[in-house]
């Protein structure tokens, strides 16, 4: 138990002053600006937006600067800010089929309509440090080709036409919202996806990796991975129609998983789904694998007791702000608590030693 303590205000003020000075670092080095972080640390900004669960690149960049690059601290700042915002409404579900793709690959079909488009990827780089980046150079310029303007068809649609993959029935109900009501288990797939998309990248990656290593194996192929911009539309009651309110970059991953069939279903492929704010493909692939693992019950698969099949275990531990909040609170003063523990241990020792002495004397 944590018992409040008073005092230490001067020390706290001084600590925060020093924090500000350390944040700035060596003053002979130019100060970072928020736009520099937004433009040149874009993938860190994307992670903070995804796990902060708030799409606003300028705010995420500011949070990274304030947090000295500690991304979980930055996510914490965004989550705290988010709670101050009035909820203006909700968007129509984004149309990822209409995404203007920067990147779009399929690991299942070589000659997929729309093509394999690599985009600005780290794949196929040699992971050797590039010392040329130590010096300021001319801005690099990418080559261009004839732009494709038509939408890119979904890979799973091709499989769906032949009935080879489980259908994803369209509906338009109101999904549950974990930011409005406390989580209850079983949570169901819409809440699982909401929790996973804002979950800690490292945790979701670890869970996904565990399924690949045999703890709830589900044989995934990346049917499609796409990164690009989608427009967001929202119904405005005063107007009586919907309007586009902006544009987001999203990463979407659809896995195609082996499924031998069950008592009620013929053999067909099944799906795992990942959709994440920003260019965040490691997270989106991980999310799709974990989504698929958590669907064991609905698909009539065996629960082998793998961690990634345990909905409550996964969802209750995926949030790094809840996790770090509870973990880090144990470093705050627990003097009263500990004092009582100390007395208890002393008493128990005294009793044990007293008994021993008594035994010695008796012998």
């Amino acid at each position, binding site marked *: 138990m944590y018992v409040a303590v008073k005092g230490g205000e001067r020390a706290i003020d001084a600590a925060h002053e020093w924090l500000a000075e350390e944040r700035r670092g060596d003053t002979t080095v130019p100060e970072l600006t928020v736009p520099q972080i937004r433009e040149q640390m874009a993938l860190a900004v994307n992670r903070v*937006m*995804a796990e902060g*669960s*708030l*799409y*606003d690149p300028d*705010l995420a960049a500011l949070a990274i600067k304030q947090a000295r690059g500690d991304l979980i601290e930055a996510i914490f700042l965004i989550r705290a800010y988010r709670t101050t915002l*009035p*909820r*203006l409404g*909700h*968007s*129509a*579900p*984004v149309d*990822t*089929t209409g995404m203007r793709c*920067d990147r779009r690959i399929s690991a299942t079909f*070589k000659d997929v309509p729309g093509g*394999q*488009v*690599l*985009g*600005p*990827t780290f794949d196929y780089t040699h992971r050797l440090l590039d010392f040329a980046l130590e010096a300021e150079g001319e801005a690099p310029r*990418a*080559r*261009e080709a*004839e*732009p*494709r*303007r038509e939408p890119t068809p*979904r890979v799973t649609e091709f499989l769906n036409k032949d009935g080879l993959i489980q259908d*994803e029935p*369209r*509906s*338009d109900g109101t*999904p549950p*919202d*974990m*930011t409005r009501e406390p989580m209850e288990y079983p949570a169901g*797939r*819409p809440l699982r*996806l*909401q929790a996973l*998309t804002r979950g800690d990248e490292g945790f979701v990656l670890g869970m996904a990796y565990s399924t690949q290593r045999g703890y709830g194996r589900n044989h995934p192929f990346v049917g499609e991975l796409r990164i690009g*911009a989608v*427009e*967001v539309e*929202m119904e405005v009651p*005063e*107007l009586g*129609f919907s*309007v*586009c*309110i*902006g*544009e987001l970059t999203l990463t979407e991953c*659809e896995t195609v998983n082996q499924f031998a069939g069950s008592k009620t279903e013929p053999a067909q492929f099944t799906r795992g789904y990942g*959709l994440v704010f920003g260019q965040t493909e490691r997270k989106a692939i991980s999310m799709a694998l974990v989504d698929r693992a958590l669907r064991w019950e609905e698909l009539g698969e065996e629960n082998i007791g793998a961690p990634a099949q345990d909905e409550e275990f996964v969802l209750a531990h995926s949030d790094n702000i809840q996790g770090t909040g509870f973990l880090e609170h144990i470093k705050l003063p627990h003097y009263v608590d500990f004092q009582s523990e100390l007395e208890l241990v002393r008493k128990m020792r005294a009793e044990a030693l007293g008994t021993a002495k008594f035994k010695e004397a008796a012998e």
Partner: protein
Amino acid sequence: METPEQEIAARQGWMGLLARAPAERLAELLGREALPGFDWLRVPETGGVMVRGRMGGTGAPFNLGEMTVTRCALRLESGEVGHAHVQGRNRAHAERAALVDALMQGPRADEMQASVLVPLASEEAARRDARAARAAATKVDFFTMVRGE
């Protein structure tokens, strides 16, 4: 004469364009215009909009996360009402978008179209094409290895 559906579609078009436009560019283009007086119906307010996705891209909806949006509504001296919902936290951006929305419904529509919306639309198309062209250059061309004679 436009049908009500066409009028709504046209308005959706410019409202979306104004929402997606870079705030500085809209300020620059509108800065050259004489702007009318107006009364606020709703002063600019920043909030969050919960963005939804669909399971499997096409299935039932789920909540993806929020985005920042600033909205406002105003009435020109001449009576037209303008609305704006624009991405981000820039109140001046929302105000300018609502002003253009109102002006587009009155006698200055052609002028606004030519001096604000046409440049914004062509610049947006150019930005999109620039990305699409880079993406196109990274498209993989597979070729089959033919065995030598």
